[in-house]
């Protein structure tokens, strides 16, 4: 029984991380109709920039800050320099974001090399407690905490601030938002940068938790994020959270019992959902 609780806890922590990647994909699609195939690369840049900063300064918090800032800047550059040229052209958007994935991934390989980078776990994240056979790892608890914190922050931003109103209104009817005098392009840029920053931070957390990572960290996690948004429903924050926890817990149990089939089960979950409820669990 205690192993089940431990695995649930791990799954929850996984799920929180996946949520942080997926939420950017989901909200950007909801608001701008853009599926960002380079989101995994932004996540990866967060990991590399964050870990590099952490290793250089010894400060985990500075690393987190660097991961968010660097990824946000890349996201902003992507949106301003490329996507802005092809608004409304879905085919070109998909092609351009895939190009950005390629360029950002190759840039990482050019700077840091294609090999695995190892990083020691920061002291704040080390260790844990055992209560009645259930292992509470500090890292997992902190991940859940940060995930919930960012979720709460996003909820506050979306529901309590004027920017949030603009985002929600823009998801519904971007044309009317413009006709009311709101500079939607500015909102687009902000959301893109914010989604990138959150992805970057989650990349840093994951990298430090794994202790070792390479340039394939981006794609595999992007894939999980895509599965989550298909399962949860595009554009829905709650759906994304629940989808992420579902995928996180599934992965955690599979990793324990049948690690080789973890991805197969997740893709299978997505396929099943596309068959029975193609609009996702929580779509309007």
């Amino acid at each position, binding site marked *: 029984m205690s192993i089940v609780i431990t695995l649930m806890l791990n799954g929850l922590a996984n799920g929180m991380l996946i949520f942080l990647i997926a939420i950017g994909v989901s909200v950007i699609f909801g608001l701008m109709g853009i599926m960002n195939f380079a989101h995994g690369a932004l996540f990866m840049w967060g990991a590399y920039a964050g870990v590099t900063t952490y290793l250089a300064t010894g400060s985990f918090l500075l690393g987190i800050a660097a991961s968010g800032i660097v990824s946000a800047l890349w996201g902003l550059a992507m949106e301003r320099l490329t996507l802005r040229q092809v608004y409304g052209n879905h085919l070109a958007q998909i092609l351009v974001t895939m190009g950005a994935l390629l360029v950002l991934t190759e840039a990482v390989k050019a700077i840091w090399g294609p090999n695995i980078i190892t990083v020691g776990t920061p002291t704040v994240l080390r260790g844990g407690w055992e209560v009645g056979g259930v292992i509470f790892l500090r890292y997992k608890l902190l991940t859940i905490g940060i995930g919930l914190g960012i979720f709460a922050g996003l909820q506050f931003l979306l529901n309590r601030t004027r920017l949030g109103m603009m985002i929600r209104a823009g998801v519904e009817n971007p044309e009317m938002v413009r006709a009311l005098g709101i500079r939607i392009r500015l909102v687009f840029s902000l959301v893109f940068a914010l989604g990138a920053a959150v992805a970057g931070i989650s990349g840093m957390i994951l990298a430090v938790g794994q202790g070792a990572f390479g340039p394939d960290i981006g794609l595999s996690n992007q894939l999980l994020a*895509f599965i989550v948004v298909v399962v949860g429903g595009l554009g829905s924050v709650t759906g994304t959270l629940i989808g992420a926890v579902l995928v996180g817990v599934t992965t955690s149990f599979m990793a324990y019992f049948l690690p080789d089939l973890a991805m197969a089960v997740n893709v299978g979950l997505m396929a099943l959902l596309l068959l029975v409820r193609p609009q996702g669990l929580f779509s309007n």
Partner: protein
Amino acid sequence: MPLKRPSRSSQISPSTAIKTLLLGAAIAFPYLTDARLYMVAAIDVFIMAAFAMSYDLLLGFTGIVSFGHALFFGLGAYLVAIVMKSSGASWLPFLAAVLLTVVLAVGLAGLIGVLSLRVRDVYFAMVTLAFGELFAIGVEKWRTVTGGSDGFNFRLPEFLIDKNHVYFLSLFFMLASLLILRRFVNSPVGRVLLAIRENEPRAQALGYNTLHYKQISILVSGTVASLAGVMWAVAHRFVSTELPSLNRTIDALLMTIIGGTGTLYGGIVGSLTMRVIHDVLSGFSSSHIIFNRWLLIFGLIYILIVLFFPAGIIGSAAKMIGRWKERHPQIS
């Protein structure tokens, strides 16, 4: 006043002349050089051209993006490799493997289409990416059969080992793919696909079941791609996890975009261009490390093309020639 052009009905058009010349050069090529290195490169160019053309059927003629095209390529390559490894170098199992490849490719393409086409276009890109990656992971993990990321060698019937035979077989395969795909896009089904690419709601309003037509396009494209994989396995007698990887799909994407979408020939031009530039850049890699990351350079070129020259090399060249002819109507 432009001069009246002489009747040219008895003459051969310039484009036919160029094509005939190129084909002649391709046939003569093995006899002109004994540098085996170029032969291998030429074979790769032919096979990848066919793979890129099958990609163009989706991207350029149907207006949908697949990020899992390498799944079919890897499927064909690994099926032949696995069958040949376990059965020895005889023809019957080889042909059976090719047949099985086609059957499985059609089945997989059908499944992917059913899952992804119903919702929105972008789901096709997402679902193909997911299935492509799942396949690549599966190939890597199923070590007992696939040899994991190291890959494995296998033997082939004697006839398929001669480099000249493989060269002509690949050339033939590329031309056959071109003819079949061209026939397909010019068929009534192909016309409907173009209508879908231009304006799907209108095609629907005209009473076409657009889902059905897209599905056919995916099946044809997947089949050609899987046969390209078979050819690749034959040419190299070696398979590894690099074949079904996303990078292989990106190769097809880059070739199609650089060559020109919606042209089929763009796949050939793109395949040749990428190989030449790749080999040239690799030659520089000792002078600067950045040339090792040639995909970075290709990626940037690709983004610029998508943003500013969406017609690619073939389309842009056709436009330039057209404009030039307009300005100089007396010459042509």
